């Protein structure tokens, strides 16, 4: 009788342990998800293959960009975030093709493709070891998404176990939203300046 009771108890215990493991252990997606490197804007962050420092974040309602001699105004029903950074490859040339704005509620906004001809865009720029270069990221999202937002940067959006930087934007509550930001091209394709209008 005692032996039978012990068997039933052992089976019950095994079920409880397995249920606990199933509920508490990370799933395959979590195990192979990107490895986060966290930091704040202004800090130099180092991932396995690249380094990046967010140097400036500006918010605007419109962006003016001069392309091939023509001025073009990009408006939005939300707001623009124009993020300047300095980035370099660590050991091997790399292109960081994934940049996104993460809103406070976890909604992710990929960098805008509307300004794909803007100068110095991080997601199309080849970074070389030993040659830090200025880079630009442009995001478009609803106005409610900028407080508490973060910038996510990774070599690719989907690669398992690759590093992904989570950079807290840290914008003050009274951050200025400029009516218009003008992106002015410099002498080379990777050179630019930003003027407020």
């Amino acid at each position, binding site marked *: 009788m005692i032996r*039978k009771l012990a068997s039933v108890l052992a089976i019950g215990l095994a079920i409880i342990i397995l249920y606990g493991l199933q509920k508490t252990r990370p799933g395959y997606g979590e195990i192979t998800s990107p490895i986060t490197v966290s930091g704040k804007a202004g800090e130099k962050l180092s991932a396995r293959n690249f380094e990046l420092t967010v140097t400036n974040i500006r918010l605007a309602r419109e962006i003016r960009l001069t392309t091939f001699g023509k001025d073009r105004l990009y408006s939005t029903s939300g707001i623009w975030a124009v993020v300047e950074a300095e980035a370099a490859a660590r*050991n*091997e*040339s790399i292109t960081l093709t994934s940049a996104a704005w993460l809103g406070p509620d976890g909604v992710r906004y990929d960098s805008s493709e509307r300004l794909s001809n803007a100068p110095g865009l991080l997601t199309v720029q*080849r970074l*070389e*070891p*030993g*040659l830090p270069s200025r880079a630009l990221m442009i995001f478009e999202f609803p106005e409610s998404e900028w407080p508490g937002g973060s910038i996510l940067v990774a070599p690719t959006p989907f690669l398992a176990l690759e590093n992904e930087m989570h950079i807290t934007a840290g914008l003050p509550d009274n951050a200025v939203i400029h009516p218009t930001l003008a992106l002015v091209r410099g002498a080379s394709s990777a050179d630019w300046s930003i003027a407020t209008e």
Partner: protein
Amino acid sequence: MTALPPLTPRDRRLRWLSLAALIVLLPAAIGVRSYGGVTGWRAEQDLDPVTTEPGKTVSYGGAEWRLEGLYQLRQDDRKSAIILAEFEAKIADPAAFAAGMCRIKLSDRGDKRWLPQFLTPYAVRKARPSIDERVTCGSATIKPLKAGETVKMAETFLAPVDVTKFDLIVSAANVRPAYLVLR
């Protein structure tokens, strides 16, 4: 319910044999499952260098390779320089050469690697017009070639101006993890 019959010596022996088999079979199953992944990973890595002496030829991936020269062209920003690598391959086995799908990198003889520029910069074309007669390593592998033919190749890289000692790394898919270091 009826009580379970007591275990016989044979049952006990079988039970211990089963447990012992698990010790062997579990690692074997893990090994078999991961074998394809490990060999695939190795085939993508440059692990075993084949290093040449300067100016000497070496056989690798169906051809005899030789580095002709590395040239530095300083940029206006005074921080970076274009590195032009000129090299040649005398084809011994055209099929093996083509299957290698040549991958090129520039190394600082340490842990830094630069990938070739997609387009040859104008400054290089202007300084060395003969570069137009050369092909890139990748395009050489899709060109119809005959045994005994010599292919002249060139690649350009963007590197810091203060790095002055480089090796050219050639890696062929059908020979990896062995890779060639042209010094």
